[in-house]
């Protein structure tokens, strides 16, 4: 099974960057500081993680701490999945 990081990298590369060569940044590279995603793309990512990982993202959770890099978003997804599983 693919890790959350792998799924996120592929989604962003294929649907936001159209890079044709996978995700070309490190997992801890800031999306916002490097112009990798804009606010429309953040909304797209919210919908993607909700559908792909079966979690519900609250408005107050749409913050840079959770949505500003592949690593942060993957960690957020795992935390939410653990909470759901409890």
């Amino acid at each position: 099974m693919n890790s959350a990081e792998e799924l996120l990298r592929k989604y962003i590369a294929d649907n936001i960057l159209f890079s044709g060569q996978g995700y070309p940044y490190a997992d801890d590279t800031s999306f916002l500081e490097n112009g990798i995603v804009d606010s429309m793309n953040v909304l797209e990512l919210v919908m993607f993680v909700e559908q792909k990982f079966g979690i519900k993202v609250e408005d107050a959770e749409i913050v840079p701490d959770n949505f500003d890099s592949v690593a942060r978003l993957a960690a957020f997804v795992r935390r939410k999945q653990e909470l759901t599983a409890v």
Partner: protein
Amino acid sequence: MTETTTGFSRRSLELDAASEVDRIVAFLQENVLRRLHRQGAVVGISGGIDSSVVLALCARAFGSQRVVGILLPEQESSPESAELAHLLAKRFDVQTMIEDITPALLGAGCYRRRDEAVQRVFPEFEPDWKSKITLPGNLLEEDRLNIFSLTVIKPDGSEQTQRLPLREYAQIVAASNFKQRARMAMLYYHAELRNYAVIGTPNKNERDMGFFVKYGDGGADINPIGHLFKSQVFQLARYLDVPIEIQQRPPTTDTYSAGSTQEEFFYRIPFEILDLVWLGYERDVPREEIAAALSLSEDQVGRVIADIERKRRATDYLRAHPINLDPAE
């Protein structure tokens, strides 16, 4: 008032209004008359502070006989907008015309397309309800990203708010943008009829943060206040003697059927804070000094700067011109 060691303070935004007006008037004359070879100015007037200041500047630059103020209401415009626009035109002795763009918007399906999207979010939504979209408030305290919510208001005043999914957000914005684009088309009609230029009304906040519609209110021949912060536009309004009712009106979008201030729709904080933080940021004033000048924490200043940067980056597309494969020399 707090003043820091670099002299940065709330007064740093203050202009010499008289010399700034002279500079803008010369800029308008040089570019409209001599460079673009247009013989006057058409300005869309809404009763807001920006278009009012632009109309007053044009009257100075070209003489009131060579300026036409066009009111462009539609069925959801606030009636106050028209009253203020007439007051303004009278003050500067400028000819006005009213062009109701409602039939054009009905023909384009503006309201229908927008309300279809609203109904997908709130299935119980009725035509007599009002709606608006907003960003999270409280930017100083929370580092929320710029995700829009939809608010619907029933005739009894009760409200419901929900985060907008991507498709519905895009449809509401795309449909609502017919308003600004219909206005732009009408302004160019009147400009071409007279060999006049269309004078843009965006200020620096709107231009740099992308708070305008591409080829809508962003479509004009020249932007005389595009370099001024909103709070500086208010300073020019005082100097130019724009009617006090316009100076005291809170800036609104006048785009959504439910009244929405520009602060709740887009900027997330009051202009007096945003403009000063932004000025300090542009001048490389240390964050602790910006914070001291405004009695804010450095964290709060950092959140405002981050929001400015994000909005600027996210809206590069709006400011981009059509791209040619072989650019002309």
